[in-house]
């Protein structure tokens, strides 16, 4: 559904580590099922997926994963409250039409919510936009402005603010930059400046 170059998914193993073994998980925007497969084999998770691209869905089902064709914006309303222990949106939120609505649905369906996204507050992006006056292109956001599926990019700070408005408590915040991961449950100015990507584990307040 969103941008997911296979060689740039270090968030997946970090997400997998946040999930308790043997739990029930829904991966929204599961692509070809990379995360679901990691969760199934390493964490013995009962995993389901939703994926927009039919090719992705068919690839998942062929791999033996339980995945349906669907849309984060439209299809989350079907699921009952507390249907899953974890609901995951990995590098997908920036491509949804209504990120607030999607997060609200996730808050209802999952006891825990995990979201990863590219941080638009990273200094390289700020430099490209602020000093060079160009739409940023980075390793994590490599599409041209006219080709990108990402219509709702946000910074770490923006995201935390939205979570607060939606009564979602940050249980863990993980700032990814280069090969390093920093813990920041209450990310500050430098986290927002240095993180290329962020992963948040959230729960209802």
């Amino acid at each position: 559904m969103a941008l997911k170059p296979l060689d740039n998914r270090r968030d997946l193993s970090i997400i997998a580590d946040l999930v308790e073994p043997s739990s029930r998980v829904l991966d929204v925007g599961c692509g070809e099922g990379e995360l679901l497969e990691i969760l199934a084999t390493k964490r013995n998770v009962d995993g389901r997926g939703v994926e927009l691209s039919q090719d992705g869905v068919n690839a998942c089902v062929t791999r033996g994963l339980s995945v349906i064709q669907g849309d984060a914006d439209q299809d989350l309303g079907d699921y009952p409250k507390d249907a899953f222990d974890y609901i995951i949106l990995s590098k997908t939120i920036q491509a949804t039409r209504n990120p607030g609505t999607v997060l609200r649905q996730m808050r209802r369906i999952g006891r825990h919510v995990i979201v990863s996204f590219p941080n638009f507050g990273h200094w390289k992006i700020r430099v490209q936009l602020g000093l060079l006056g160009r739409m940023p292109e980075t390793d994590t956001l490599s599409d041209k402005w006219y080709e990108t599926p990402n219509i709702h990019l946000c910074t770490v700070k923006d995201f935390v603010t939205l979570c607060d408005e939606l009564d979602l408590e940050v249980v863990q915040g993980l700032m990814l930059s280069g090969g390093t991961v920093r813990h920041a449950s209450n990310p500050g100015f430098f986290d927002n400046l240095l993180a290329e990507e962020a992963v948040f584990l959230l729960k209802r307040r």
Partner: protein
Amino acid sequence: MGTSADISGDQSRNQEEQKLAFEMVTFQSSQPLRLDSGEDLYPVVQAYNTYGTLNADNTNAVLVCHALTLDQHAANVHPATGKEGWWQGMIGPGCPIDTNRFFVICPNVVGGCQGTTGPESINPETGKPYGLDFPVITIADMVRAQVQLIDHLGIDKLFCVAGGSMGGMQTLEWASTYADRVYSAIPIATAARHSAQNIAFHEVGRQAVQADPDWHDGAYYEHGTRPRKGLAVARMAAHITYMSESSLFQKFDRNLQDGEEFTYGFGPDFQIESYLRHQGSTFVDRFDANSYLYITRAMDYFDLAAGHGDSLANAFKDTETRFCVVSFTSDWHYPTTYNKQIVHALNAVAANVSFVEIESDKGHDAFLLDEPEMFSTLRGFIDSTAERRGLG
């Protein structure tokens, strides 16, 4: 697998002749088939075919449910037509439903005409074929008869129930009403309720049969006639709904049957006309017109949500069955939207469901054809499900 078929003496000779091609079991008055209409039906002959071997703990059985005009000959040469089985690519050694691993059962539905009791069978009260005295049956009745067969075969829980079109309806009925006896379910190109459009096409077919003077109010067996023309028209109309506009275009376009000139008459000028006439005339050789009326009626009555407070999700409440729903892009008869309604309902009860829409230009019939993507996704689903079931 050999089953002691308890054939009652008054079966038609036709069935005796076909005896070698499939197996039969008869349920007598001690085990009547309780119908939705309130009637008890007996005796009921259940004709079926099996492929593969049942394992020691009876856990590897796959029930395959057939569509409207098909029968128990899913993976063997049809004894009457000489054609290969209708799901030959799906069932067999090394196929997605691998007969080296699974014991496959394919019964002919109640109301059918290939050995299972239907309107063509002898009514024990009159000694003549039932005709319209045969009770109206439903999809649930078909499944109830299959439950008797599965019990008879000593199978408590089916590893999988699978079927396309009307076979998908039976699959859904199984998964809803007998959830604890179905480990996994594969409804394909189907619907949880028959739509007004579906019913409309069926009614055209039924009216065509009933308009044929050879139908004799369903008692044509006694008149030595068959409503061939009416049934052929019914089949022609139905056949159009099984194909997509693009497959008709690719196969026939406006091509003429003979030569390059119109005949300025009403013969089959166009190839599509000739094709439909052929479909109609070969169909009447293998299918009973009254069966066509009864089975289309059963499909029209099907509405799984109706028995569950008009909530399809309630029909699957607390299900532990693993589902794989399949639809086809060019199927306008049972389109993706109908199949997605099933998926939405299953999501609403947080059921374990996969859903694939297969890109195909073959229309509704795609589920019967060589569709590599359907085979590969179903193989993935079945293999991973078998592993969970300990059938690895």
